[in-house]
């Protein structure tokens, strides 16, 4: 089977963004995932966020590894270059791409198998390198493409479709990222687009590695009773810590009336994000508090969601490596080759 393209017909009345693009212009080829897959909702949220941010598709790069989640980069922004790499290795390919061209917007899509098992090391080290990218971890607790094995994010006691209970402790990407010093850590739910879209927009604007762990149920292999990654479980146990409102640079900020409860964080490009605590006293700029909150939710069987931690003052890969402002891939050869005179002079040092 080859990939399916969508008909190019457009409704003339579709709303357009500042670039004159409709939401349809941010779509890709037809999804080949199962009907009802959480990942398709994530794709829809991404498309919404790109459109609202007026992101030029040809200035973005879509990065992924292998798995159901990694397939989704084909389902949005067909006018962007995309790279479907090898299993678990998207973070390194993105690190290299970003090192070579710092001007593009990098959108990494991964899953719990891709990021927490085979690619755990790669994800951790991309966080440490603080690669400027959006990192969507579409988390369903299960290997879908190979039909239903537990992934490393499956909770203890969560059962497979065949009724077998998982006994190994899960790896929580949010706690991991907080520990590793990630400067943007969020969790959301594919079924909560209202929450997800502003988080994606903030993550895209954040300078540095922005992790969004999206619980994204697998309708074919992990949406049954006994699963802790099902639609039903998430609807019941989602515990939002903060409500996020992303305010782009050009829009005037007007604080809501109860502004005492709102934290305003300025992003490096001048945009702001307004965080309204929905959990009492929650402070998304305090890493330790975020960690404690996520852990205490876990103990109660709840899933902490929202923009859990943000620090926009971190140094990214290019800051740490002190690279020039021009993308390295665009530097002319003349600026890179020292030339004959320098070589002749250098040779004296080897005599």
């Amino acid at each position, binding site marked *: *089977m*080859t*990939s399916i393209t969508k008909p190019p017909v457009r409704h003339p009345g579709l709303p357009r963004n500042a670039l004159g693009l409709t939401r349809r212009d941010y779509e890709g080829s037809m999804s080949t995932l199962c009907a009802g897959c959480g990942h398709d909702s994530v794709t829809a949220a991404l498309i919404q966020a790109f459109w609202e941010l007026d992101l030029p*598709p*040809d*200035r973005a*790069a879509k990065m992924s590894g292998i798995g159901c989640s990694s397939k989704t*980069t*084909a389902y949005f922004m*067909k*006018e*962007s*270059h*995309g*790279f*479907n*790499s*090898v299993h678990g*290795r998207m*973070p*390194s*390919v*993105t*690190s*290299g*791409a970003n*090192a*070579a*061209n710092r*001007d*593009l917007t990098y959108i990494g899509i991964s899953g719990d198998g891709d990021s927490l098992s085979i690619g755990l*090391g*790669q994800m*951790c*080290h991309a966080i440490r*390198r603080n690669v400027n990218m959006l990192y969507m971890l579409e988390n369903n607790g299960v290997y879908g493409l190979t039909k239903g094995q537990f992934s490393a994010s499956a909770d203890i006691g969560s059962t497979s479709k065949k009724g077998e209970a998982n006994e190994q402790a899960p790896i929580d990407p949010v706690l991991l990222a907080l520990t590793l010093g990630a400067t943007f850590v969020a969790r959301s739910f594919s079924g909560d687009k209202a929450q997800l879209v502003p988080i994606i927009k903030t993550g895209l604007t954040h300078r540095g590695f922005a992790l969004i762990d999206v619980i994204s149920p697998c309708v074919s292999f992990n949406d049954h009773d006994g699963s802790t990654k099902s639609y039903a479980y998430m609807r019941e146990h989602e515990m939002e810590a903060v409500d996020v409102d992303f305010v782009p640079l050009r829009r005037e900020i007007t604080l809501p009336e109860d502004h005492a409860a709102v934290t305003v964080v300025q992003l490096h490009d001048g945009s702001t994000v307004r965080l309204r605590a929905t959990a009492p006293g929650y402070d998304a700029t305090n890493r330790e508090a975020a960690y404690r909150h996520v852990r205490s939710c876990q103990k109660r069987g709840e899933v902490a969601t929202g923009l859990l931690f943000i620090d926009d003052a971190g140094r990214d*890969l290019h800051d740490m*490596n*002190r*690279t*020039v*402002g021009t*993308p*390295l*891939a*665009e*530097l002319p*050869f003349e*600026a*890179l*080759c*020292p*030339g*004959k005179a*320098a*070589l*002749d002079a250098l*040779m004296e040092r*080897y*005599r």
Partner: protein
Amino acid sequence: MSGTNDFAFKMATVNGTGSASANSLLMQAIFRMGIPVTGKNIFPSNIQGLPTWYEIRVSKDGYTARPPEIDLVVALNPSTYAKDVATVRPGGYLLYDSSWPLDPTLARKGITILGVPFGQMCIQAFERDRDRTLLRNIAYAGALVALLEIDRQVVEEMLNEKFGKKKALLEANHRAIRLGYDYAMEHLEHPLPFHLERMDKTSDSIVMDGNTACALGAVYAGATVGAWYPITPSTSLMEAFKGFCQKYRVDADTGLNKYCILQAEDELSAAGIAIGAAWMGARAFTNTSGPGISLMQEFIGLAYYTEIPAVFFDVQRCGPATGMPTRTQQADLMSLAYASHGDTKHIVLFPADPGECFEMSVTAFDLAERFQTPVFVASDLDIGMNDWMVPRLQWDDDYRPDRGKVLDAAALEKVKKFSRYLDVDGDGIAARTLPGSGAKGAYFVRGSGHDKHAAYTEDSDAYQEVVDRIARKFEYAALAVPKAELRLQDGSETGVITIGSCDAAVREAVDRLREQGIHVDFMRIKAFPFGPEVRDFLVRHANTFVIEQNRDAQLRALLAIETGIPRDLMIPVLDYSGMPLTCTALVAAVTKYLTEVPT
């Protein structure tokens, strides 16, 4: 036989005690006397306390291979006395530290044993324990200056250059040289029958190791992204790249870097970074050794199938597994040529010395971008980490990088529809676009089955069309890679074929054989896939010897696979001891064969 400006000596010491600087001082001094010289460092995979050797060969005729025999051994490591004394050629010399009575292990008939109380003299002359240990090495250098007639003024100038600003250290070093020198002049017969006389045969040369040369090539080729994971013996390549970048690639106005070096968490990631950067249009590379190549296999296949240029430096060491990390071998030939699962084959370049490392490093980036494929530079520990005397490196300012077929925004304007894997020119190479260069050129890189438009496919014909075109690309690559080097003699029916760092020893063997009246033709493979000259050479010679440094005759296997010449028509000569090759093995193999087989 040894003689003036034609001999070899060896220092046997304990690693981590400072002998390396004394040894390179000696080698450099001989070089500055205008005499061709080579140094081979044979060191342990260890930081301190294990045996290490340094062999210096002086050759007025310019032979740079490891010496076939040792005229003088400086035995300063009691744990290897037995082995070291055995390596002195009959009639040769042994120099030991006579601070202690002569160890019975060192007593050997038929050689001359010389004693200098290095330890004792240093204890008397220096206060601190550290100085007493470190300067003992400089003291033996001093004794060698006397025994071999190394120009003392040259040595002292070098100390001044090295320690100029550190006065106490400078004085201590001068004093240590004098300790050894004066003792030898007073107590020993000098100079030895083999010694040095000034020549003028090094003014056009430099002394450099291959890792430095590869790194310099990467700088000159315009590489901007380097990714790596530390591994012996390739570590110094990236360290050298960093050093050169700090010298040549820092923006004068802003102090910012026109390069990015990422030390990755492992070799998989290093390969991924290089591939990601190359996809984005930067010249990017990674450097590693055999274990790293094993780890990179999956990514190599991805780059091959998705047609992304990236350069891989493999500084080979002894395998399999961890093997002997500080010993040399050419045992990655097969794993490079066909790296990764599925049908894959790769362009591999085989430099013979640091001079070629520099050239081939630049060539590798050009070939990678021209053919849109990973390219390997297969160096080895002997080339990479030893100091070689090579002609001064040259650069032509007219050089411009071959970036291959890249459609920029303007070129895309003229194209009706862009298809990433469509063979427009009939040479197997399809044009690529770089991310960020416009929506029209956007495509999806995928390691899964794809058709000529880069769309996912499971259709047999569409799949085969792409992999067949990639195979065609390699037929053209065979004509574009560096040609094998040939040195033919009149009417010879015997040919020797070799590769990489074996070059120096094999050339020497060819000369030795000629002295015995045996004329052999020489071919050195410089690249894979092989050009047509390689098969021609095999066809033209009744007897062919293939000499290489691995157990399984990997080069011979590649020759058989790729040329169709039966494997058993080629006689393997193999040295997989881990040591740099000497001319002895090939000379012995050829003479034995030609005297045993009736003609």
